[in-house]
């Protein structure tokens, strides 16, 4: 039966052809021009490792390319995976810029000496407290930690004033939380810094007993919205994005802010850095500068991301509480960023 045998014989041929094609393709894509010096940067190509929301990044990249003529190749993945990838790549990393949702991923690269300090003008574009003290990365946008609650199950008057109350028995079976999210450890760290490590451990034990564990904030906010949990600590923007997806008719939840300077009132920052190994330093620095420029911050503010732009004078998306009305706890990003103690505590209690 020659006809039926043909596919089997073809398979290895097909394989060889594909592999050969693939090898050719890769050769082509690895070459990119790297002219440096005072000349215009237009025509250069840089690679961005992107751990931020892809749609927002795409808008930013488009505006940057239009303005500078620099081409940006974007690689998106989970920020922690990208940080691990860059750690493995070391000096040979193809990445020129790294843009993340949270700062610990940037801090770990700084500790390994993989980041190039940013231009002063870039760092000066946003309040210094939102960037790396060493100037290794710049804060680009911010989110507020809040409480989402189910509006059919609870009225605003019933809601807690402090995140510490979530450990009280009255929230048993009503609480949901995502302990493996990067946003979660800063809450533990914050309580630990303000009230001491043993208070933090007690609090964690309490919410473990009260709550349901969700894999991520997206799930947490969705499960509060559909009534599976009544409350959950999240970052504000998850709720706004859910609102857009489910529409008014599907919305059964709202946001609640803790009292001023409560340990649950945190600002989480998204940041960007230039890799020391980058062979396109000027173009990479230009991209970092663009992210905190007026144009870049306006793009952020009008995107679907609902984050707060950090550059003074740029207002956030309509409907968000004004950034200067947020009254976060008085702890620096560096103090909150080192989550190792929080992580150990979570592991000890079996939450991770």
């Amino acid at each position, binding site marked *: 039966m020659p006809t*039926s*045998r043909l596919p*089997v*014989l073809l*398979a*290895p041929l*097909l*394989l060889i052809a*594909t*592999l050969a*094609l*693939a*090898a050719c*393709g*890769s*050769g082509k*894509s*690895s070459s990119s021009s790297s002219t440096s010096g005072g000349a215009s940067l237009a025509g250069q190509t840089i*690679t961005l490792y992107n751990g931020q*929301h*892809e*749609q927002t990044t795409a808008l930013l990249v488009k505006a940057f390319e239009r303005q500078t003529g620099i081409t940006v190749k*974007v*690689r*998106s993945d*989970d920020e*922690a*995976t990208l*940080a*691990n*990838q860059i750690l*493995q*790549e*070391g000096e*040979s*990393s*193809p990445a020129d810029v790294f843009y993340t949702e949270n700062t610990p*991923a940037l801090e770990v690269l700084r500790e390994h000496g993989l980041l190039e300090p940013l231009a002063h003008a870039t760092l000066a574009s946003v309040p210094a407290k939102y960037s790396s003290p060493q100037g290794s990365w710049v804060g680009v946008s911010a989110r507020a930690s809040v409480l989402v609650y189910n509006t059919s199950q609870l009225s605003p008057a019933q809601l807690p004033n402090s995140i510490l109350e979530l450990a009280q028995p009255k929230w048993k079976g009503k609480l949901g939380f995502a302990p*493996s999210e*990067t946003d979660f450890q800063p809450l533990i760290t914050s309580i630990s810094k303000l009230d001491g490590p043993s208070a933090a451990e007690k609090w964690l034990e309490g919410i473990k007993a009260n709550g*349901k*564990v*969700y*894999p991520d904030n997206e*799930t947490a906010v969705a*499960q509060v919205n*559909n*009534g*599976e949990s009544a409350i959950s600590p999240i970052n504000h923007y998850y709720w706004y*994005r859910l609102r*857009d*997806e*489910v529409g008014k008719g*599907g919305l059964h939840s709202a946001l609640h802010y803790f009292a001023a300077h409560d340990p649950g009132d945190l600002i989480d920052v998204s940041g960007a850095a230039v890799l020391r190994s980058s062979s396109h330093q000027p173009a990479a620095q230009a991209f970092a500068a663009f992210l905190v420029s007026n144009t870049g911050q306006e793009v952020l503010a009008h995107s679907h991301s609902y984050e707060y732009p950090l550059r003074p004078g740029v207002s956030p998306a309509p409907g968000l509480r004004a950034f200067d009305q947020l009254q976060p706890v008085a702890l620096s990003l560096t103090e909150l960023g080192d989550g*190792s103690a929080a*992580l150990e505590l979570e*592991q*000890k209690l*079996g939450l*991770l």
Partner: protein
Amino acid sequence: MSSLTPTADQNPGSFTRAWSGRRRWPVLSVAGGAIASGLVLLPLAFLLNQAGRSGWGEVSRLLFRHSTAVLLWNTARLAFASTALCALLGVAAAWCVERTNLPARRLWAVALVLPLGIPDFVIGFGWVSIDPSLHGYLAALMIMTLSLYPLVYLPVAAGLARADPALEEVARSLGLGAWQTFRRVTLPQIWPAVLGGCLLVTLGLLAEYGAFEIVQYQTFTVAIFTEFKLGFDAAAACALSLVLVAIGIVVLGGELTLAGRNRGTGTRPREGARRPSSAVALGRLTVPVLAGVFALVGLALGVPIGALVYWLVHGGSTTLPSASILTEAGHTAVFSAAAAALATTLAVPVCALSVRHRNRFTLAIERLAYLPQALPGLVIALGLVSFTIRYALPLYQSTLELIVAYAILFLPLAVVGVRAAMVHASSSVLEDVARSLGRRPVTVWLRVTLPVIRPGLGAAFALVFVSSATELTATLLLRPTGVNTLATQFWTYTSDFSYGAAAPYAAVMVAISAVPAYVLSRRVSALARIGQS
């Protein structure tokens, strides 16, 4: 065939003897086996290298805490129960489709494979949207069983397709009931396929992570991912992954014992006399059996597809997918097909060696080829990152590297598909006949062996293809920058709540996965027709 496992001290010339037996030195097989082993050793070398950098203090703190025992117990009880259930469902479904007059058999043959082509996230989401309170052990058991049973079904169906039905008919004509015929005649013939499938399920569950997140069931991989994602500590993560390797080795050894117990009970098939099996008439059982198969497909395929439809109808982000979905579908199809061809090609020498030239060395090569199944994809992908960045920089983040990564990740699936077929072929008398007629070994391979193992190759190809089509972790790490597949686009949208926009990508993924499953089911029937003419 003489025993091919003499020990070196008893017999000085044993090594050569072990290779030769009645056949010549299989140069191609040895070369192919060496390449396959080399590829599998890459991530293992990375693992050892990284683990070596981690301080013992940190590793022992992570290993000897209370939660480790809990996590390992969670892993073990899930792996055990889920494997048993997958074996039951996989074998029963395969037997019904291949051996009975079940209505719409061809439809079921395709539908039963498809759950493998649905991303874990869609399956998990489908269930949680039906019942938001679904979580814990039983939920994990149900979801994993429903998504993994095709790993048993597919090799076993292929095994049944090539097993000689004449023997079953003889058994039945001699008065054996359907159950006794199955147990004493059919089961020994498909035993390697059953065990192979179970091996894939067990090892796969050791490394599974994503699906458990959704139902809040924590296994040992949680500890590994915590080190990677929150601790940024690859060294500690790799040290913990060695525990999975160790468990994997124990499981592989155990399977060998089980397989060995049944070795030699296989029958010599008479390929020349192949003809379609006379289907077992279900009679009054038709409706209940049909209902059972329908229920299985409904739960495993209907629930996730229902979730997709729900997203399409109710999602605020639902739009017509952009034209680029065709490009992405093309990438997925081409990458998966190339990976399936590569993995299947590599599996042939691995299995040829271990089945036909069985000695400790060839057996080690085969067992090694199963190990990637027990490792999280992230570990394997980072291993490749680490290797190519140092020694093969031009290949870094190339299509070729991605295809090789898929081939390593899913080599175990290919080995299971091919191995069972090879066991079957090696007991065939046809090769001897062809050789005695003076045919050259290559001719014998092409004209006798290949046609006999073809259903196994098809099953291997389909398993690897479908798994590659939904692969996400390695794809995100290793794809060429700017290249998207259906899985990466799906991930992009779901990580932004745009479920409506994401749904078409998952739907196309399922559709693409249906292609090899369909071709396979056609080919199996075609083979039956060939025997008939």
